[in-house]
């Protein structure tokens, strides 16, 4: 009967999948090397304002394209080793910022770890009409400010003398509460993700890819697709990121 919890390097399954865990020689691995890490001046996350210091007077159009598609900025690590990667688009408002700041601040040790924002403070004004009124009467007043986050962007970075295992629990706790799907990643994890994506793209056995159909306008498919699909190549739909697609 194969036992369920087998970790490959310690007890690889034998013939028939049977795993017999045995105690072996204790290995003394080298402790991790934290020599190249530079701590910023303030290790805790900065407080983000609800409203920018110069609040906007002119009400702005919605511009939902700032959520759509892959992110161009803050896609790679700068200071820290671990972070939260956004796997979808969305808006972060002050409540989210406070939640992130307080959760990370509560769980990290400011002496050995540091955290850094990778998103700017809310600056995009959102209007809201007062409740219970009919359509019409002009655009509503500015209700709150938000930051737009596109897919593939890092939200916060955490680093210092710590391992991924220490940091992952509270980063996933934060990631679950964000308005878009997100995941806790490390530098190696992100590289691994990108490598796997690239491998998938290369060893895809399907000769028909979305990109090929769109660029060649095969069967007149561009009638049913958006011009943005040339860029998004079927991996993004609105603010959602389709992970399983190549």
């Amino acid at each position: 009967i194969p036992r369920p919890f087998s970790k490959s390097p310690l007890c690889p399954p034998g013939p028939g999948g049977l795993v017999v865990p045995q105690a072996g020689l204790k290995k003394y691995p080298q402790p991790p090397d934290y020599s190249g890490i530079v701590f910023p001046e303030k290790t805790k996350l900065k407080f983000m304002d609800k409203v920018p210091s110069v609040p906007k007077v002119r009400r702005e159009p919605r511009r939902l394209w700032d959520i759509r598609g892959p992110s161009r900025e803050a896609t790679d690590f700068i200071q820290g080793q671990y972070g939260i990667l956004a796997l979808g688009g969305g808006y972060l408002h002050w409540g989210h910022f406070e939640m992130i700041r307080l959760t990370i601040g509560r769980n990290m040790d400011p002496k050995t770890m540091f955290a850094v924002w990778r998103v700017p403070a809310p600056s995009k004004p959102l209007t809201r009409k007062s409740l219970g009124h009919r359509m019409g009467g002009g655009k509503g007043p500015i209700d709150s400010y938000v930051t737009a986050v596109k897919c593939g962007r890092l939200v916060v970075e955490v680093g210092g003398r710590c391992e991924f295992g220490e940091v992952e629990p509270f980063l996933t706790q934060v990631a679950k509460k964000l308005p878009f799907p997100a995941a806790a990643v490390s530098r190696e994890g992100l590289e691994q993700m990108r490598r796997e994506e690239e491998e998938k793209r290369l060893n895809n056995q399907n000769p028909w890819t979305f990109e090929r159909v769109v660029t060649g306008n095969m069967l007149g498919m561009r009638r049913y697709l958006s011009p943005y699909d040339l860029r998004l190549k079927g991996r993004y739909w609105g603010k959602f990121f389709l992970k399983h697609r190549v």
Partner: protein
Amino acid sequence: SPLSPGWLPALQLVRRGSKAVTRHWKAMHFQRQKLMAVTEYLPPRPAVPPSCLPRAEETRQEDDGYARVLRRQVEEAFRENRMIAVCQYNSMPGEDVVMMKHYLRKHNIEVKFFLNEIVRPVLSQSKYKNLLPLFVGRNVLLVSRETKAKEMLRVLKGVPQINLLGACIDDTILSRKGVENFARLPPLEAAQGQTAGALALLPSQTSSLLQRGSVYLTALLDRHIQQLQAAETGSPAEPSPPQTSSE
């Protein structure tokens, strides 16, 4: 002006439905759904699934210094000692272990614990390959420079938790019965004496063999003389004295 027939009223299309980016999952046009279904990812399927192929040996982790030290100790133990006994080790209370070690130490037998995962590769590359089946499960090595099998067996008889599996005495693999027979053998000096005696038996007979002819002749002549004397006691004169030949 009337609308030209080839002009698609784009506004109509835009007014219908929601914007491009929505909070909910926007329903896709059916043609787009079909396109998404056609252009899905197909993973590669090799003709022979990788689970049917022999597993590629994973890259060995770097050699641990501690493992190297232990391996050296194992090699030393096998090189230095004449008697190496492998016993099954069931858990014993601590004081019993100490007592057993004490009794064995009196006979100059050391108790050594080695990990199987270290001993097995060392043995498989040395001349003790046939001892490999013994090193499975919890075991202990009793090593000694002299071969005092009888004392060892006596001590082990008093300890039920340790069972002798096999031994390698003077580069000879012995089973449990073999060790018992070996213990029953006479000590080395007595055996040497016996061998020397057996070998010296034939040369000791050489002198008597060589003398046999002349001794026989002497005996015959003595007998003859006696017979003559017996015949001459009937007649008083003695014609000739007995001749004794020199040896």
